[in-house]
């Protein structure tokens, strides 16, 4: 009898909790966003979250920063546990890779892909959609663009009057910097001696990693010429190998120790916010072979919706993602970004105009470079090929292999993963 009484009390208490829940609780929704990067990146995302909250009463956007180093593993771990964010931003290739594992929602079905596709450059959108895939697991969130940076005074002192536009001009300029006594005439900060660092040289000399049908093309004659040119940076122009110098090239460029540096537009972000009082910074497109376009590597982050999120959450996430391409939201993000020394570069090219911190010539450079930039390949197996390709390239850059042999080895790795 006592037991029955206890059960009755328990049922009454549970029922009380259930039926006394406020009626408006169901209307409250929380969208959890993981922003890959640092605290500044999370702050920029929070600005978008704030705009979304203002436009959608009852919705809370919770933004958490996750690091680049283990972000991908965290996303997959969340997918495995079916617990974590509703939305995340991450590397451009994460969408294809995690999507193919079944971790992500199809953004085409959520109406995001069709909304975003016409707004962003086709070659950047393509980089996030798997070859022949009918599903879209990520759309571009922001961009990181490979550019050439230098100090105007350093180049002027070496007798160089303008930024080298062609590869021949670049070689001549680097030689002049060396003759002028610049300790490190060329410095690769982003993708040093890696496939990523090689990418812009390859594409700006008319080469490619794969063709449009994902046939491997890295080892053709253009690839050989590009890799031979890339090696000159290390053998002729004193570019430090990875692990030799630290990653911060700003002070070295400012002090005239480094001549020309290759890095992402995050350097421009640093120049024109943190170092804004120094007026000698300059940014230019990566050099191209005569008759070829300057094709910079474009990285950055894609944005995806987790597959385990409920239908309601996925629809809310889709609605949130669409706002990230709105000019007024991007402007809010850039105001926060400028204060955090981390300017947000929207994949909608015209939205670059909302970046007040950049001088007009830098904005012009970024916008022109974006039009022809290329993202990482969307071919099957590229993610798993990267390490092998890099090792193969280095066998020529720092080893005894010929350029052709190194590229043949890289091609073999890529073909084996297709």
């Amino acid at each position, binding site marked *: 009898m006592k037991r029955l009484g206890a059960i009755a009390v328990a049922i009454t208490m549970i029922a009380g909790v259930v039926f006394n829940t406020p009626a408006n609780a169901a209307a409250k929704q929380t969208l959890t966003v993981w922003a890959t990067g640092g605290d500044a990146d999370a702050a920029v995302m929070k600005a978008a979250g704030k705009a979304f909250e203002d436009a959608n009463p009852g919705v809370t956007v919770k933004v958490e920063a996750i690091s680049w180093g283990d972000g991908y593993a965290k996303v997959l771990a969340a997918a*495995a546990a079916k617990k974590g964010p509703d939305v995340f931003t991450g590397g451009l290739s994460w969408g294809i890779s995690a999507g193919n*594992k*079944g971790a992500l929602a199809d953004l085409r079905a959520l109406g995001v892909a069709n909304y975003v596709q016409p707004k962003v450059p086709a070659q950047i959108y393509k980089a996030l959609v798997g070859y022949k895939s009918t599903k879209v697991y990520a759309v571009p969130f922001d961009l990181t663009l490979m550019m050439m940076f230098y100090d105007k005074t350093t180049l002027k002192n070496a007798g160089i009057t303008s930024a080298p536009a062609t590869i021949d001009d670049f070689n001549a300029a680097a030689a002049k910097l060396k003759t002028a006594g610049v300790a490190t005439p060329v410095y690769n900060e982003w993708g040093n001696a890696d496939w990523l660092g090689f990418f812009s040289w390859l594409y700006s000399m008319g080469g490619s990693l794969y063709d449009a049908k994902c046939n491997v093309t890295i080892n053709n004659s253009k690839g050989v010429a590009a890799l031979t040119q890339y090696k000159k940076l290390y053998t002729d122009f004193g570019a430090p190998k990875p692990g030799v110098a630290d990653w911060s090239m700003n002070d070295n460029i400012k002090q005239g120790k480094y001549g020309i540096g290759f890095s992402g537009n995050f350097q421009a972000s640093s120049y024109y916010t943190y170092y804004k009082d120094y007026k000698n910074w300059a940014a230019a497109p990566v050099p191209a072979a005569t008759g070829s376009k300057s094709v910079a590597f474009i990285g950055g982050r894609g944005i995806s919706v987790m597959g385990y999120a409920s239908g309601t959450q996925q629809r809310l996430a889709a609605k949130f993602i669409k706002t990230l391409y709105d000019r007024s939201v991007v402007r809010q993000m850039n105001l926060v970004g400028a204060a955090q020394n981390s300017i947000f570069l929207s994949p909608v090219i015209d939205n670059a105009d909302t970046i007040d911190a950049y001088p007009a010539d830098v904005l012009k450079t970024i916008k022109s470079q974006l039009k022809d930039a290329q993202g990482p390949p969307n071919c099957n197996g590229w993610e798993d090929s990267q*390490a*092998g390709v890099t090792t193969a390239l280095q066998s020529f850059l*720092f080893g005894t292999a010929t350029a052709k042999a190194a590229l043949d080895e890289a091609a073999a790795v890529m073909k084996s993963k297709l």
Partner: protein
Amino acid sequence: MPKSVKESTGDVSRKTGFRKFSDVGISTYLMLSPFVLLFIVFSVYPVLASLRLSFMRYNAICNPDQSPCGSVGFGNYATLIFHDDRFHKALSNTAIYVVGAVILGMIASLSLALSLQEDTKSNRILRVIFFLPSVTSGIAVVLVWGWVFRGDGVGLLNAMLSVFGVHPIEWLATTWMAIPILIFMSLWGGAGFGMILFLAGLNSIPAMYYEAAVIDGAGPKQRFRYITLPLLRPVMVYVGITGIIGAFQIFEGVYLLFPTSVGSIGGLRDMALMIVPYLYDSGFNKFRLGYASAIAWVLFAIIFIVSMINLKLTRSLEDLK
């Protein structure tokens, strides 16, 4: 009296199964149970689960439509052993590192122990100094080494060498230097621990053996060769086996000093790629958990075989008993 003892021992030896279990007392098992439970949950189960995963294609998400998980038989092992060039590179690098770190580590530890054997105040201080790296955080030590071996003029070693007019050396970007640097770091960090073990071994050797040898006319070299080394054999086996296991598991040094900027680990041309960092890369960067489990079991097999060979070669099984 002897008879009763024999009867008594015979009686105990006949106890088996539940009688033996109940004689120990249920309270004993109750007190052991928290550890046993945690051991089963956090050690035994994961180990057995990883063995199962090593025969599977498994990424933890296992979406049946896109990336179904399932058995691949010995597929992971076959790929590792016959087709994976990076694993082969990791294996050869690890083998070189293990041989260098263990042999040189034992020589350094024994040399330190012999040098600091005498119980004087200065030796006690020196023992503490040499032992300190063993109790220092591994990550912190590796980061400090990173500054020592920086390849530009700011690196500590290069700054010191520049005093003698030596141009900066690209320590961490020169292919053949990677493994020697890792071995050197291992010696610096581990020789003190080995020294303590060897000191304990040296102090346990009765002095009368040396006194008798001196009377028989044995010199220092002969005393070392015929008394010290044979009687230190159990300690050497212990230091050797634990050193081998530790060396095979090298991770922090590679992960922190030899990263590559995009999508890989192991430094230029995989010069410092070792088995455990490769396992980490496969498992937690690429989420190929089945494949990473296979790497772990291959590593276990290698360590087990090498340890058994070590025991056999030194013929010290009896000593250890």
